[in-house]
């Protein structure tokens, strides 16, 4: 996903002279093509994320369209106050990109995990929070983000994520994309966990369960229209994300449910209230937190039977 990000941003920078890229000392050679367009619009801001965020907001206040790129914890939790004050309070059109989100860097340890980023950034007034599920969605999200008139956060994976969308879908911030229609349960997922969710839907189908699969790439604003319609269609929703169960997509859907007397029940898949202290690959970490196709299918199936 990060190569596609560099590629798409390079195209966007060719189209729009206001696009500036700020990197937190990562992406060696990744942005060589971007730099070749205009070296004055690429800055390695060093390992100094608080400053980088302020610099980006200052540029945005002068009419530029800065995009900030570094590993997710460092472009979110590390400089949260700068995001809050410099970007959000000023409603500055800064695009914050977190790479290696969720458990992408599972083997680097919890300092490099990001299982809280969507939860905390979602609290900030005016902030949009996007979690594209594949390269196609990421390209669309980036393009859409640069047309917004305020701050946007995009969490992306690392590399090698499979393509989900067979063709380019219609993309709008705040509107989910139905990947597969179904009638028994809605699987609402955000981000790069989508391949597992697809497999879960396949497993459910083998048990005769018709699962609707929706990419909720926009965690904020949330697609409440879809959810409102879902009330009469489903008795059960599942939210799935490579993120903590507190405050992310699952939390956002739970907040929506609080205002609906007729809302479906919700099962929330995500990491728990714990750090992962042992070493492990992304697959190991996902399994630890129950984010596997088999676990999702099993829990959903059991919940449907219990209903």
């Amino acid at each position, binding site marked *: 996903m990060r190569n596609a990000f560099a590629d798409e941003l390079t195209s966007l920078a060719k189209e729009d002279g206001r696009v*500036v890229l700020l990197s937190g000392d990562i992406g060696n050679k990744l942005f060589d093509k971007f730099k070749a367009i205009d070296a*004055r*619009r690429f*800055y390695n*801001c*060093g390992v*100094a994320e*608080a*400053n*980088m*965020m*302020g*610099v*980006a*907001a*200052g*540029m*945005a*206040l*002068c*009419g*530029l369209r*800065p995009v900030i790129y570094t590993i997710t914890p460092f472009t979110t939790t590390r400089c949260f*106050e*700068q995001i809050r*004050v*410099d970007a959000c*309070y*000023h*409603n500055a059109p800064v695009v914050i990109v977190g790479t290696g989100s969720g458990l992408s860097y599972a083997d680097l340890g919890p300092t490099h995990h990001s299982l809280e980023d969507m939860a905390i950034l979602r609290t900030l007034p005016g902030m949009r929070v996007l979690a594209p599920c594949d390269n196609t969605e990421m390209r669309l999200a980036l393009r859409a983000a640069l047309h917004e008139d305020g701050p946007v956060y995009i969490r992306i994976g690392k590399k090698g994520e499979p393509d989900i969308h067979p063709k380019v879908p219609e993309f709008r911030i705040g509107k989910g994309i139905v990947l597969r229609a179904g009638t028994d349960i809605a699987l609402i997922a955000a981000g790069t966990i989508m391949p597992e969710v697809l497999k879960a839907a396949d497993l459910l189908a083998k048990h005769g369960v018709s699962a609707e699969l929706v990419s909720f790439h926009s965690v904020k604003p949330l697609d409440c229209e879809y959810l409102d319609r879902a009330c009469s269609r489903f008795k059960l929703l599942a939210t799935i994300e490579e993120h903590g169960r507190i405050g992310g997509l699952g939390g956002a859907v739970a907040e929506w449910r609080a205002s609906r007397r007729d809302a479906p029940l919700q099962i929330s898949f995500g990491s728990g209230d714990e750090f992962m202290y042992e070493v492990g690959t992304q697959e190991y970490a996902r399994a630890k937190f129950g984010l596997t196709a088999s676990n999702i299918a099993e829990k959903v199936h059991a919940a449907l039977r219990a209903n």
Partner: protein
Amino acid sequence: MSKLTELQGRARLLRARIIENSHKTNTPHLGSCLSCVDMLVAMYFSVLRIDPSTPRSATRDRFILSKGHGAAALFQVLGMRGFYPEAMLDDYGKDGSVFAEHPPTPDHLPGIEAATGSLGHGLPLGLGMAMAGRIQGHDFKVYALLSDGECNEGSVWEAALFAAAQRVAHLCVMVDFNKWQATGRSEEVMALSPLVDKWRAFGWNACEIDGHDIEAIIDSVARCPSSDGRPTAVIAHTVKGKGVSFMEDDNNWHYRIPTAAEVALSKKELEVFE
């Protein structure tokens, strides 16, 4: 009347108005406001290339009061400079007013460049603005006025490193070095000295001046832009509570509100009789 005499008169008038406003509206940070008045006057009435009738002009110089707790002083000077009618300041601190203890965003009050108040934000923001100017081919300058206490913040030094690395010559830091922070001597809290050497060591074109000498302020910021690409730092030695004998260098005036009698006494000392 010479230009200098005029500016000094404005500084006295501003001090009186800030003190009256503090009494009237129960607004603290008086000492911090009074220490930077001469710098505000020098900038807004002599240095900055600004036009209050086009406050968002792309080519204007930018001035950021990074020590946002000096907002009461900034609001008075922006009113005096014509960014809004001075009568608007009668609403200071009232419910629904934009005049709070810290500056609002540029979208909410003409003349404001950044909503500061949380320390350590103004310099990175200003650096971004100066870099934007360079990318866009403008030659405007960006000035950020910091407090010495603010230099406790790591983000200030992150920005100092990056500005030097990028050779952002059109950026100028002014430090209101009044030797106090909220609850103690800035030297005792964070061992700031030698402050000018720190900025120099970070690659800045640094100098130190008497921050109440208006001519020295004007001369020192004229070092920006430097000829060799270094950003400029002016370490301005100031006195907290400057201008009123019983407030000078007394840190109680970080939070204390003057009584009516103290306002009258201050105005007498300042020779302001409006």
